[in-house]
């Protein structure tokens, strides 16, 4: 078994590789991205988030030990009118260092942060962003400040306020006074499910 000789070489080579790996692991920087959640995870968890209704908000706003309202609107709008005990952090500045430390403090103290904008929509993207960077204690005020302020039409925004199908069909029927043709039919498109091609297939050798 003379081939067993010269094992020093392997040991040295393996050790060099091992060392390189160690150096690599140490040099390796943690990814800069502060995101702790992938978009897909966020999407999967979205139904779990319970939004804050105005009725709940009325109780919460006095309970400052457990809840804090964050007004995402401009300082001007905030000055004009805001929810009691709310703090003002315009959307553009939510990731500023001072606000991040504020959010961190709330997270540590288990204080629920309720975001609101003028409409509910304004708080949606900030909520997604904050949740994804790790603030699981952030919630959204249903209907936004409009609803809180008494505009009940804004309180349930995603409900259909018109009978879409009926309006478009009745409209079409009316327009089609001779009643020769059927109501305008929308064309539904069959969308072929197309997977993105991952790899160009080209012959081996």
């Amino acid at each position: 078994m003379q081939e067993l000789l010269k094992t020093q070489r392997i040991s040295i080579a393996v050790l060099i590789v091992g060392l390189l790996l160690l150096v690599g692991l140490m040099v390796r920087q943690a990814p800069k991205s502060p995101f702790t959640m992938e978009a897909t995870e966020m999407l999967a968890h979205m139904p779990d988030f319970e939004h804050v209704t105005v009725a709940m908000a009325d109780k919460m706003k006095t309970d400052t030990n457990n809840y804090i309202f964050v007004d995402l609107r401009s300082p001007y709008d905030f000055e004009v009118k805001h929810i009691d005990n709310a703090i003002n952090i315009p959307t553009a500045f939510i990731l500023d260092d001072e606000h991040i430390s504020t959010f961190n403090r709330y997270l540590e103290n288990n204080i629920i942060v309720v975001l609101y904008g003028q409409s509910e929509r304004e708080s949606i993207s900030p909520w997604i962003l904050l949740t994804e960077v790790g603030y699981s204690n952030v919630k959204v005020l249903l209907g936004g400040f409009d609803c809180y302020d008494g505009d009940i039409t804004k309180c349930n925004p995603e409900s259909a306020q018109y009978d879409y199908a009926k309006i478009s069909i009745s409209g079409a029927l009316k327009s089609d006074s001779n009643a020769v043709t059927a109501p305008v039919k929308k064309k539904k498109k069959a969308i072929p499910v197309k997977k993105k091609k991952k790899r160009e297939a080209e012959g081996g050798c």
Partner: protein
Amino acid sequence: MQKRYIFLAILFIAMASGLLFLPDMKEKSQIPVDVFLNDIHSNNRHLTSDEIAKRIINGDPMVFLVDVRTVEEYDNYSLPGSINIPLKDILLDDWAGYLDQDIVDVIFYSNDDILSEQAWALCKQLGFKNLYVLDGGLNTWFETIMLPKEPGELASTAAFDLFSFRTGASIYFGSGSTAVAVEAKPVKKKTIPVKKKAKREAEGGC
């Protein structure tokens, strides 16, 4: 000699098992967080119903409407030429070819603009381009386009112009009261997925 081999084997297994214990440091797929925040803050993603109606009527091939509501709601009513991607499916690979491209303008809509805003935020953070949201969703669409309100006597000419446009549009989209039947023409859609970096153009070694 044999000892040295055992040592090497142990070293080798240790290196291999190191892979198993690596902490999860996978790169996230999101765009940098400040870019994303900037996108959130700038409001140019919101298109009004008038703008979109105008573009559809003009046969703008760049308009690509995506209904993010449920299948039932979509079947009940949807805008002409729109496709249905329920919000829960929005990130499936099947749709990446439609959403991750830089040819057409993808316009999300739902009953209001909450679901569509969520769809926008989820897709935007992955770096997809040309994403828009129908301002106010279908509710505003019906309020303005399908059932336009006549402005008061004292309103400006612009308001009347807008009203006449909306009346025309409502006919186009199958509502309104005049006797002109207009076929709702679905917009032609073209989707060419964004070309990813040349992956493996090289022919395989052997």
